[in-house]
């Protein structure tokens, strides 16, 4: 009788056994780390995007979009500020759920206020600054992200970042008048503070064939979010 009672209790939504709760330290941080595509997880010291951190991306818009993809699939909202030429189609092909991706293409002089407001409501905010943001303001935005539990993803230079990702790569699939751009092998180097100070380097196929980054998000994940 007690066995079946435990089983029926554990089957309820939101109820779990004590053993499940204390199994591994990684499980305890679930909810504090936003998921990323599998290939990128090796790159990040927390196995995902830690809430409150500032992760700088350089050299590839595709990498930026790939970072956002898995989190939006999981229900998080993402915003991109100051990138009027973002290719949304590429974002969708990488697995980003576009209806949870808000764009503020021309923040103009209100960049600081807009980014601050978005950090209050979004899990992920990517910013490309046109250069007029002062260092103190940039640090203030990082602090706000830390305070609100959002992830700030600046594109370009940013002072005091927790992690910096640099991307270089080359395309394959195109020949002398035949074929088409199929996939791109990239090398992403990460460097940062704390656990990431040692630096890391991974090779990825990004975007992979048919536009989806490798490794691909599972069919079950895709099915859950697509209406």
């Amino acid at each position, binding site marked *: 009788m007690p066995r079946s009672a435990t089983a029926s209790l554990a089957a309820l939504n*939101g109820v779990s056994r004590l053993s499940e709760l204390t199994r591994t330290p990684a499980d305890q941080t679930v*909810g504090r780390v936003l998921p990323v595509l599998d290939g990128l997880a090796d790159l990040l010291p927390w196995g995902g995007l830690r809430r409150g951190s500032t992760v700088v991306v350089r*050299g*590839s*818009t*595709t990498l930026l*979009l790939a970072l956002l993809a898995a989190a939006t699939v999981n*229900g*998080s*909202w993402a*915003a991109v500020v100051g990138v*009027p*030429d*973002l*290719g*949304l*189609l*590429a*974002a*969708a*092909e990488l697995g980003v759920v*576009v*209806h*949870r*991706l*808000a*764009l*503020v*293409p*021309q*923040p*103009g002089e*209100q960049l600081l*206020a*807009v980014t601050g*407001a*978005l950090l*209050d*409501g*979004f*899990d992920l905010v990517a910013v490309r600054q046109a250069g007029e943001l002062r260092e103190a303001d940039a640090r203030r935005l990082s602090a706000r992200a830390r305070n609100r539990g959002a992830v700030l993803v600046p594109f370009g230079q940013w002072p005091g970042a927790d992690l910096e990702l640099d991307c*270089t*790569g*080359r*395309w394959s699939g*195109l*020949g*002398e*008048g*035949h*074929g*088409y*751009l*199929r*996939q*791109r092998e990239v090398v992403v180097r990460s460097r940062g503070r704390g656990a990431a100070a040692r630096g890391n380097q991974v090779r990825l196929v990004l*975007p992979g064939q*048919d*536009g989806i980054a490798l490794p691909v998000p599972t069919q079950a994940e895709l099915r859950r979010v697509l209406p």
Partner: protein
Amino acid sequence: MTVRTLVVWCPDWPVTAALSTAGLDQQVPAAVFAANRVVACSAAARAEGVRRGDRRRTAQGRCPELVVFEEDLERDARVFEPVAAAVERLATGIEVVRPGLVALPVRGPVGYFGSEQAVAERLIDQVAGEQGVECQVGIADGLYAATLAARTGLVVPAGGSAEFLAPLGIAELDQPAERRGPERAALVDLLRRLGLRTLGAFAALTERDVASRFGADGVCAHRLARGAEERPPSRRRPPDDLGVTQTPDPPLDRVDAAAFAARALAESLHDKLAAVGLACTRLGVHARTEHGEELGRVWRCAEPLTPTGIADRVRWQLDGWLRAEDRPTAGLVRLWLVPEEVVDATALQLGLWHGGAEDPGTGAERAGRALVRVQGLLGPEGVFTGVLGGGRGPSDRVRAVPWGEQRLPSADPDAPWPGRLPAPSPATVPAEPVAVEVLDDSAAPVGVTGRHVLTGAPAQVVLGGGPPRAVLAWAGPWSAEERWWERERRRSRLQVVLDDAEQTALLLVREDKRWTVEGIYD
């Protein structure tokens, strides 16, 4: 049981409306044309021999000074609205059947004014006095009989509709102004050829015979001819005035004072809407300054507005106006809010509990609030979400929709799009096209022939006047001839990889004999 109906009819309404819009005298010979045929003409034109259905040339031949107007149904309706309002001041529950024709159940006004004759006189005086428009009134059982009675300004006694209609010609079944379409005209023609020349003769047939021979439209016409009701007038309720106005004194010129005013105004608008069970989804904020400048903007919202939501938007808008570079030259002396679009207030059902972290709505709700805040900073056109649709190029397939508006794709995404590029798509799509030159081995420009073939192999690319850069690999062209039915658009796309350290990959597009960069694969 037919309802005793009164009809106020303004003869030749399209002409009256056109003349008054043009500011001309009503006595001028004038006619309104649709598809080169007269649809309506003024009494003066009729006296000169102009008839409905005449060609323009014929009409102008008969009456050289004829003023010609194009048919405009919106103008007719717009000019008629004050006339309908004038009638409404004497009698409630009116129905505007079409511009120029108002119907109302006669019982109420008769009870008030004493007799049907008195009501008719009062209405004619009212319309002529207030709007300066001539009209005629007819009273009969049923809308159709009353409309015909209005032609001659007749009051048909109760129960006498069938008798009144009987001697009228069968052609009266097809009133041109009602736009019944060719079936009714064909029916009238058929009845006439069958020897049924009057409405009475048609009404004498049994309904069963009519139904078996002439179909549904025949039955409907038969009911009219017998003087039976087609349908009762559908009474209109005067639209509630839902706007709220405030006249601040002293004039508003400071942001903090504006914020205070916004709060009070929002509360009163919300109360007014809530009293009639509505909530607002599009809010018009308007202001007038001491110097008579008028400012206005409409805010669209994804969900019905709460009092706080209204107050926020009004405050942001006033903030925007008072802080702008070209701020108004004087303080605001009049503020008014107009709910441009309302929905049933049940749509604004606030949750009893604001769900916990598991609630899937919360993330969206938080994000929505942040986006509305950003719209307050940048204006409603500052925040977008994308919708993927059909198309060939990376920019054609995406439509940016301002936050709060309906997310509709620009073209059907499921249709086949031959000439579409295979995935992956460029991650950067320049908002402004970047001019580029494509050269072959001998530094001659590369073009695309009429048969979609490149005139040479691309060897060099000159980006925006910079130094030529060698091409490492290329493929294409992907060609498409789009929209040949309006403005032909021939486009050819080319993928190139440049021979530099980063191996830049570009998507080039050729249109109007010019290459531009459409996408950068980065």
